[in-house]
């Protein structure tokens, strides 16, 4: 029988029972960036394999939703499409599409990342890689269809712009777009990994996600303009981190609209807080989720 020595060695990796709260594996996740890229490629390839229209499907869905919104909320319910008072003319179709593509990225990413552990348990049960790679790859994969939708959006935008009769204009505000996309990723992944951490034990929350997203949709100015929200509720309303993303997106794309630097900073703070809580929870759960899932 061999005896173990007292040699401690300088180990590169040490696994213990204790977990430090802020041990988030961020550096390690960065080292696995090739894997993130390959996951994105896999998701994209497998999504459109053996479809005739391929990535065109990414356009059809928001296009139809926007048509329905234009008919129902615009023509029938006649809800306002103005974010600020005044007589800026914005085509309803473009207004709804802006909200829809933002919302569809947010909801699809949240929904996909909230399943991280359950969907990947086959792989994660057999081999170790930083678990955060999966939700990040999902967020990037969804960015591809978002990009396609963005191209569609600006094509339609250009048509309206050159036919005239609207107040939309090209401004440097458009440069805010990357920042908005980043915030969108942060919020949706943040909420997604919180849900995924909790669902390893309680599957209820997975049921709640679909329903919750439906409700959340009404709390965002997708189908109506910000003008519809009573002034006294506005502070509370703007705490929803998705709201400023959508209004600021319209602000930067149309060249006018609602933008308040304080609201915007608060929404970033909320987004980052959600993301951070998600990271802490996620790194806590990922160590032993295989035992309970």
């Amino acid at each position: 029988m061999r005896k173990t020595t007292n040699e401690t060695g300088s180990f590169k990796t040490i696994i213990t029972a204790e977990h430090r709260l802020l041990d988030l594996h961020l550096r390690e996740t960065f080292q696995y960036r090739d894997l993130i890229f390959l996951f994105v490629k896999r998701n994209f390839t497998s999504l459109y394999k053996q479809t005739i229209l391929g990535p065109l499907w990414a356009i059809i869905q928001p296009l139809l939703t926007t048509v329905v919104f234009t008919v129902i909320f615009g023509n029938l319910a006649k809800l306002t499409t103005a974010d600020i008072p005044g007589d800026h003319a914005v085509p309803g179709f473009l207004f709804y599409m802006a909200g829809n593509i933002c919302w569809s990225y947010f909801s699809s990413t949240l929904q996909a990342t909230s399943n991280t552990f359950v969907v990947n348990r086959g792989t994660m049960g057999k081999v170790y890689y930083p678990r955060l790679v999966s939700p990040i790859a999902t967020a990037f994969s969804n960015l591809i269809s978002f990009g396609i939708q963005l191209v569609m959006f600006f094509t339609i935008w250009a048509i309206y712009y050159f036919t005239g009769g609207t107040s939309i204009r090209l401004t440097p505000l458009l440069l805010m777009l990357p920042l908005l996309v980043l915030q969108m990723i942060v919020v949706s992944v943040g909420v997604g990994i919180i849900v995924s951490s909790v669902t390893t034990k309680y599957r209820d929350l997975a049921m709640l996600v679909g329903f919750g997203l439906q409700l959340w949709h009404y709390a965002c100015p997708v189908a109506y303009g910000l003008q519809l929200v009573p002034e006294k509720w506005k502070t509370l309303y703007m705490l929803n981190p998705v709201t400023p993303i959508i209004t600021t997106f319209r602000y930067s794309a149309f060249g006018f609209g609602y933008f308040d630097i304080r609201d915007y900073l608060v929404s970033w703070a909320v987004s980052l807080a959600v993301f951070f809580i998600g990271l802490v929870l996620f790194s806590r759960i990922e160590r032993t989720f295989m035992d309970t899932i």
Partner: protein
Amino acid sequence: MEELMLKIDNVSKLYKLGQIGRTTLRDELQRFSARLHGREDPTKKIGAKTYKIGETFLALDGVSFEVRKGERVGIIGHNGAGKSTLLKLISRITAPTAGMIGLNGRVASMLEVGTGFHGELTGRENVYLNGAIMGMTKREIDDKIEDIIEFSEVRQFIDTPVKRYSSGMYVKLAFSVAAHLDAEIMIMDEILAVGDMAFQKKCLEKMNDVSKNEGRTVLYVSHNMNTIRELCDRVIVLDHGKVVFDGSVEDGIEVYSGQRKEGSWRVDYKLAPELRLWNGRITRMRSAEFLNQSCCQTEPDRIRLKVCWESDTVVKDICLRLEFSKSDGTKIGAACGFGIDKGEHRQNGEATVVLDASSLVSGRYETIINLFTVNEFGSHKNLDCVRGPDIELVGGRSDIVWNARKWGSVRFPDMVTE
């Protein structure tokens, strides 16, 4: 002394018994309220075995050992001994409940081949994906992709989606990726049983090659003692979550096979009914014993076996077969004795038979003793079958050192030139 690669220090893993992970928030709340009111758990299944709160199961219990660079360690143990749990902890799939694991280098865990393979992707794309999951960067895979494809023998189909592969091609490709990992510590869980015979042999050779020539450290879990012998130079035996043996391969395998029982040279089957392999309804073995033993060891050229049996009716012309096998179950051969009751046709009898087994090389063998009769057409009818005492053969010829692992346990008489 070589560099320390892996240190397991007093590691334990605790699992909760009963239902875990299948609970819903509602059940949990109901259970909580029932406990407050002192009622029975309303979510419990009727008749289900109940586990007290906090009742647990120690899958690993204070395991400690060290592995140095270049060592090839086999981990063996019965089902539930904790082998897989140990590998899961080392490969960081789940965390230990107590203790420390120190790793000096990258770990490649091959608990399954083809983890993360996606049917829609081509073979080549899957090599990249699988390699990246195992921790390789794209550049590392670029360097090795040709070797991997060459090794996998599926070059012709490498740009076809793997969902169209045969299962053999699939595992061959998957193993090839695993075999080309650049990790310093390789963890394998009985995955060498892939592909056809030729490919299995190739896999074993590859694993031997990476550990011997490249100085990698290998941890290998298997129930197949032959591959353990071929691949490992050290064995750790786990039993009920504890390390019960750590040392040389042959000794470890014997500990695992439960062979180290002294005084097993005579077996009384009334006292040891578990050694009966067959339920002899008319005739039953009473005892079996190897005579001529000096210190539990026998010369192979004159093995004397004494058997006693009892029978409900008179049975004519009882025959006996003595089968030899290795401790891992490999059959070596058998010898028969005809008419051992010498025509006495009694109900109870005993006989001593002598066997010249000088073709068998030295070593320890398991035996099976079979009583039977043969009818006039030559077909035989079993009367009883028992596990006989183990026998250790010593002496014999010493002109060369016989490598039983490679050449087998039977040494035929020497060849002569014509």
